């Protein structure tokens, strides 16, 4: 496969119209083009899915740098495994499955390498910076910090289901495909995760909700 044209792609990302190409192509077309050797098509897939994938991984691991590393690993694996994708219409679900695997592998590895971090009851995650911000943004900034802290305290499976449903707006069917959980289990996990989040965030927003 030819070397990807990094330079030009880098310049386009983040500029007005950068996502236009991604939005104009169906996932089936993009997958077919990548399989045919069109490197540009994979950049369009990255443009389309990098934001949700990166935020999903960040919600799972709670660290910005690590999330970026794992998002990179997700897309590299996706590129190399693309021939194994059976249903091109489910590219998004497939990418989330890879991201889920990558994130969970990292979480397991972290537990092994620094078991004492969790043994002491303190999970390793970073909080948002609560430094000075414009008054109008302060509430959202603080709220985001509270949500992230509560999210990181959910156990891994509940966090996975909660993130996919509430923050990524995935359907039960998609979540079942991504996680391999039965719909019954994910409903139970989701209900419990909602209750735990409510209990932890409730005091901040001033009530039980």
């Amino acid at each position, binding site marked *: 496969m030819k070397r990807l044209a990094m330079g030009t792609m880098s310049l386009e990302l983040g500029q007005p119209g950068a996502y236009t190409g991604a939005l104009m192509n169906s996932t089936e077309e993009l997958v077919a083009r990548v399989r045919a050797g069109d490197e540009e098509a994979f950049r369009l897939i990255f443009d389309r899915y*990098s934001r949700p994938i990166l935020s999903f991984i960040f919600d799972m691991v709670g660290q910005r740098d690590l999330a970026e590393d794992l998002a*990179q690993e997700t897309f*590299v694996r996706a590129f190399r495994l693309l021939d194994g994708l059976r249903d091109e219409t489910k590219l998004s679900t497939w990418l989330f499955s890879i991201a889920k695997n990558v994130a969970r592998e990292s979480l397991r590895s972290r537990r092994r390498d620094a*078991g004492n971090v969790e043994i002491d009851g303190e999970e390793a995650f970073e909080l948002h910076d609560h430094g000075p911000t414009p008054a109008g943004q302060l509430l959202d900034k603080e709220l*985001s910090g509270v949500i992230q802290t509560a999210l990181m305290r959910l156990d891994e499976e509940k966090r996975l289901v909660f993130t996919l449903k509430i923050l990524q707006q995935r359907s039960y069917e998609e979540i079942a495909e991504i996680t391999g959980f039965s719909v019954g289990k994910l409903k139970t996990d989701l209900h419990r995760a909602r209750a735990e989040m409510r209990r932890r965030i409730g005091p901040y927003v001033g009530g039980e909700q």
Partner: protein
Amino acid sequence: MLRCEDCIPLIEEYFDGEVDATVSEQMSAHISACADCAAALDALSFESEMYARYERGIEPTPALWARVSAEIARGPQPETIAERRPFLSRARASFAAALGALSMRPALASSLALLVVGVTAGSLWLANRPSPTNQTLVVATTEVTNGADVTPTPTGPPPPPVPVSSPDKVDVEIAANSKVAGPDSYRQPKAGVVNEEKIPSVDDLLNYQLPASINRALIDESHAVPDTVAQLVDEPRAGADIVNASAQAPGAGDKEMARHVEQTQMLLRSIKNARAGEEGGTVNVAYEKSLSRQLLADNATLKLEADVKGDKDTKQVLDTIEPFLLDIANMREQASREEVRSIRERVKKTEIIASLQVY
């Protein structure tokens, strides 16, 4: 018409749009007429709006795509020799991972160490005991003695003394001793003598005289030479030495600990002296963060080793270091002045650098 007790259990699924059309219509009808169920639905809407305001402060950057494309262009790379971790490092990591849970349970770790010592000594006892061709144990049966207690009495000449040798020759000597009698002669009963193989009791094991070669392995400046397994078991430090004797040279653990403390001191000094750069008043602590993560993993391993050795002083030092390492490891690479100042203040207040210097 649905009732509240039918509606409430399904309200989350209804809100998520995951109930079928018929149930959805029935629930809509009920909720429009029921204040309690409507309130439950409002609460879910409120939460949903709140989560929609969740800002992660993270966006895909051009640099991320550059990294992805570079990695793809590079293709799958076999692990190079330079990237491989040293064998001992990998072995130590695997050992630490396997016994990771023990760091929470010092009692279990100590028990395991004692068990290893016991099994080792038991094996030595079985392998080194006198050959049945030279010495037989006369065990009286109940018919002969009418139930009287009879202590097994060794007959025949005493066993030859175990030659003094270096610890690494012990296994060879044991193998040689075992060969003297040979498997066939060992099993052959003699006429008129009940030649039963006696299973050693716990007392037998504890009173077993340690071979001189093992004694020599245990001699160090701070410990008396144990004569029996019982003395050995009574001294956890000595027991731990036996467990580690074949794994590392004496003092290797101390050197590692000294290096760990030295690196931690360097890290804390670096944080203490860190100053904000020109860009946005943040402090680049990427190196410190990375170093701290490595030290955190080492700290866990060293704590495990200290636990096994029963070395409370070392463990206390490691416990003191750990919160600092954890905080630095969890900093952002571009840390705010406030984050750095908070850790710097704690470093000063606790005088941890000076304490580590003394160690």
